[in-house]
C-alpha cells in the first residue's frame, strides 16, 4: 500500500511540476512533507524539505533547457527515508537522511534524461493532433494536449517506488550492521545541509550573493547563540 501511495504522489508531482499549474507543490520544500504526511511521518518530511529545497533552488526550466528532476529525486529520498525510519523504528534521523540522499539522490539526474525522452515522445502527440485536424476532428485534436500528462505521471510513478524500495532495504541493513555509523553519517548530513544553503545562494544569481549570504549567516549565528541556540 505504501508503494502505491508513493507512486501516486510521485506521479501527481511530475504532472504539477511542468504540465499543469506549477504552484510550487512539486518543489522539495512542499513535496518532502507531503510525501512524509502521505506515509505517516510528517516530521521526517519536514526534516528533509528545507535542505533539499535549498540544494535544488536553481532547478528551473528556463527556455528549452532541462534541469535535474528535483521532484522525482525528492519523492525518492523522502519516501525511502521515511520507510527506512519506520523499519528501524526511529523515524527519519540525520543518518537515514544522509544515506537516502547518497543512495537515491542521483534519481534527479536520471529524471532529467527521462524528461528529455518524454519531450521527444511528445512530438508524436503533436503529429497526431495535426492528423486529427486534417481529418476534421477538431475536439480530438485539441484534447491531445492532455495525453501529454500521462507519460510523466507513469515514469515517476514507476521510478520513485523502486528507488524507495531500494532505500528502505539498504538503509536498515547498513545502520543495523554498523550502528557506530549513525553519528558520522549525522555529520555527513550536516555538511550536506551547509552545501545546500550555499547552492541556494548561488541559484539566486544575485551580484552581491556571496556578501549577502555570508552576512546573513553570520548575523543568524550571532542572534542564535545570543538567544541560546535552536533546539
Amino acid at each position, binding site marked *: 500500500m505504501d508503494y502505491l501511495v508513493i507512486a501516486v504522489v510521485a506521479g501527481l508531482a511530475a504532472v504539477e511540476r511542468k*504540465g*499543469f499549474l506549477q*504552484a*510550487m507543490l512539486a*518543489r522539495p*520544500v*512542499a513535496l518532502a*512533507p507531503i510525501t512524509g504526511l502521505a506515509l505517516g511521518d510528517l516530521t521526517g518530511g*519536514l526534516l528533509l*524539505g*528545507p535542505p533539499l*529545497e535549498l*540544494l535544488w*533552488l536553481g532547478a*528551473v526550466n*528556463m527556455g528549452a533547457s532541462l534541469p*535535474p528532476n528535483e521532484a522525482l529525486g525528492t519523492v525518492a529520498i523522502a519516501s525511502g527515508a521515511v520507510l527506512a525510519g519506520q523499519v528501524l523504528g526511529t523515524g527519519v534521523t540525520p543518518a537515514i537522511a*544522509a544515506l537516502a540522499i547518497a543512495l537515491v*539522490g*542521483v534519481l534527479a*539526474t536520471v529524471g532529467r534524461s527521462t524528461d528529455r525522452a518524454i519531450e521527444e515522445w*511528445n*512530438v508524436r*502527440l*503533436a503529429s497526431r*493532433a495535426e492528423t486529427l*485536424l486534417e481529418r*476534421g476532428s477538431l475536439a480530438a485534436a485539441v484534447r491531445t*494536449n*492532455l*495525453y*501529454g500528462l500521462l507519460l510523466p505521471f507513469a515514469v515517476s510513478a514507476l521510478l520513485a517506488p523502486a528507488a524507495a524500495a531500494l532505500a528502505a532495504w539498504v538503509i536498515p541493513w547498513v545502520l543495523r550492521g554498523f550502528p*557506530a555509523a549513525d*553519528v*558520522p553519517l*549525522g555529520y*555527513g*548530513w550536516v*555538511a*550536506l*545541509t*551547509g552545501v545546500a*544553503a*550555499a*547552492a*541556494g545562494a548561488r541559484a*539566486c544569481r*544575485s551580484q552581491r550573493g*556571496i556578501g*549577502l*549570504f555570508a*552576512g*546573513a*549567516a553570520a*548575523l*543568524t*549565528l550571532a542572534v*542564535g547563540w545570543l538567544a541560546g*541556540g*535552536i533546539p
Partner: protein
Amino acid sequence: MNVPPVTLRRVFWRCLFLQAAWNRRGMQNLGFAYAIAPALRRLYADPGQRSEALRRHLATFNCHPYTAAAIVGGAIHHEERVAAGEEPPGAPLEYKQVLQGPLAAVGDGFFWAGLRPFFGALAAVGTLLLGWPALVAALLLYNGLHLWLRWTLFRAGYRSGDDVVLQLARLSLPAWAARLRDGGAALAGVGAGILALVATGRLGFAAGAVAIAAAAAGVVALWLRARLLPTAYAALALGTAAGILAVRLRGGHP
C-alpha cells in the same frame, strides 16, 4: 463579436495546462491550441474557419508558462478582429511570434530567477523556524501572487493587444527581480545559520563547525562552477569522515 467573460475564464483555466504536452518540435504549440480553443469556438461558427484558426495556433510556440497568459489573451484580442474582418488571418500568429521571446525573457528573469527562488528560500527558512504553518503560509502567498499576476497579464493581453508590452513595463518586473534575487541569497544565508545552529544543538559544537565549513567550501566550489550533485556527494563523504574523526577524538562517545 466579443468572446464572453465565461469563455475567457475557461481559456485562462486551460492556460494552466500550457506545457502538458511540451515537445521538441512545436514546444508549447499543443498547449496553446488547447487553451485558445474555447474562444475560437465562440468566434468561428463555421468548422472550416475554426479549423483554419486552430491550425495557425498549432505553429511552434514557446514562452514562460506564466507570462504566456498575456499572449493567449492578446491572441484572442486579434482573433476577434480577424473574425470581424478587420485584420488579416496572419495577425494573431505575427503577434505571438513577436512577443514570445521578450515575454519568455521577462518571465524567466522575474518568476524563475527571482520570485520562485525567493519564496523557496523563504519557505525553507520558515519551515526550519516555525514548522509546517510557515510552509503553508509561504505557499499561499506565492500562489496568490503568481495567480493574480497570471490573470492580470491574461486580462491585459486581451484588453490591450499589442499594448500589453507597455502595461508589462509599468510593473517594473526586472527591478523587482533584482531585489528578490538579493533577498533569496540573504535568506539562504539565514538558512545556513539556522542549519548550523540545529546541528550544534543536535550533535555538538563540532557539527556546527562542520556545517559552517561546508557552507563556506560550497560557496567557493559552486561560484567556481563546480557541478552541484558531485559537490553535494563530496560534502556528504567529507562530513562523514569528519564525524568519524570527531567520534574517535572523543574516545568513541559523541
